[in-house]
């Protein structure tokens, strides 16, 4: 029954790798937030300093969804 165990391990690793692709979406989201902040800040530099906190909150919320895919990958690797 060694084959069965290998198959399960293979499924775990492939699943964890696939789950990590979700983090790419978080990367796109974070890049979008910061890019838009920067383009806004270059148009109106006077208002930029007051909005950095908002930018970080936006980054955190965009990143949270990538964290869930990371969580799934962690669960597949270590919790099953």
């Amino acid at each position: 029954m060694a084959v069965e165990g290998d198959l399960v391990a293979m499924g775990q690793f492939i699943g964890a790798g696939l789950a990590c692709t979700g983090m790419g979406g978080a990367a796109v989201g974070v890049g979008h937030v910061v890019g838009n902040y920067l383009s806004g800040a270059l148009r109106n530099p006077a208002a930029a300093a007051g909005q950095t906190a908002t930018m970080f909150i936006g980054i955190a919320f965009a990143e949270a969804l990538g964290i869930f895919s990371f969580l799934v990958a962690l669960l597949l690797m270590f919790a099953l």
Partner: protein
Amino acid sequence: MAGEATGGGLNIDPMSQFVVKVPSWLGGGNVEWYSITNVTLWMGLTVLAIAGLLIFGTRRRAIVPNRSQSIAEVIYGFIHSMVEDIAGKEGLKFFPYIFTIFMFILVANVLGLLPMSFTTTSHIAVTALMAVAIFIAVTILGFVKNGTKFLSLFWISSAPLPLRPILAIIELISYFVRPISHSIRLAGNMMAGHALVKVFAGFAGALGIFGVFPVLAVAILYPLETLVAVIQAYVFTILTCVYLNDALHPHH
């Protein structure tokens, strides 16, 4: 979590740095509930470093501050204005707690960057404790301050009526997911960064003369990790302030 990435002739084991163990000079052996592990040790050093900075920094209270006094004052003023900006005047009552959290995470992250040290915040057990404590505290605070009006956080009155039940479910899910994302963001960033540096350091040992390139990569990654350490402490604190603001002013 140890021993996942060995193979291919390269002796790279990036996860072994996160193993909780009793240091050999403290007796070694198994980890019991009373034993002083490397986590306990580095948490203690973190607390000592913070206490040292704040006590010795504010001892003289000179009008023209010296170096440690300016550091203490800048961090204090930065967190104070952040709490006031995001959570409002009422949030300042909770400033000592938020300042404690920020200092602990910041110093733990930065101490973790020392070679051969242990990053306590790379463990989900450590960050989840802080995140769940904040989650429970904020939920109780919301109900104590606002009573049942706290539930208007989930019932968005500015949205069209047919949409509100759907939005309520989404808001409810996103509320209960908060401690998970809050804790894994910090632990994951710390763990991934340190594992990445360790992988590159492992390449340097395996490549011989060409090991100069991975060492250069580590030299480039290291400031990035320092930046991440500070930013993640900031993000953890700012999200605490946002959650506190939701509890104090639950109107959308």
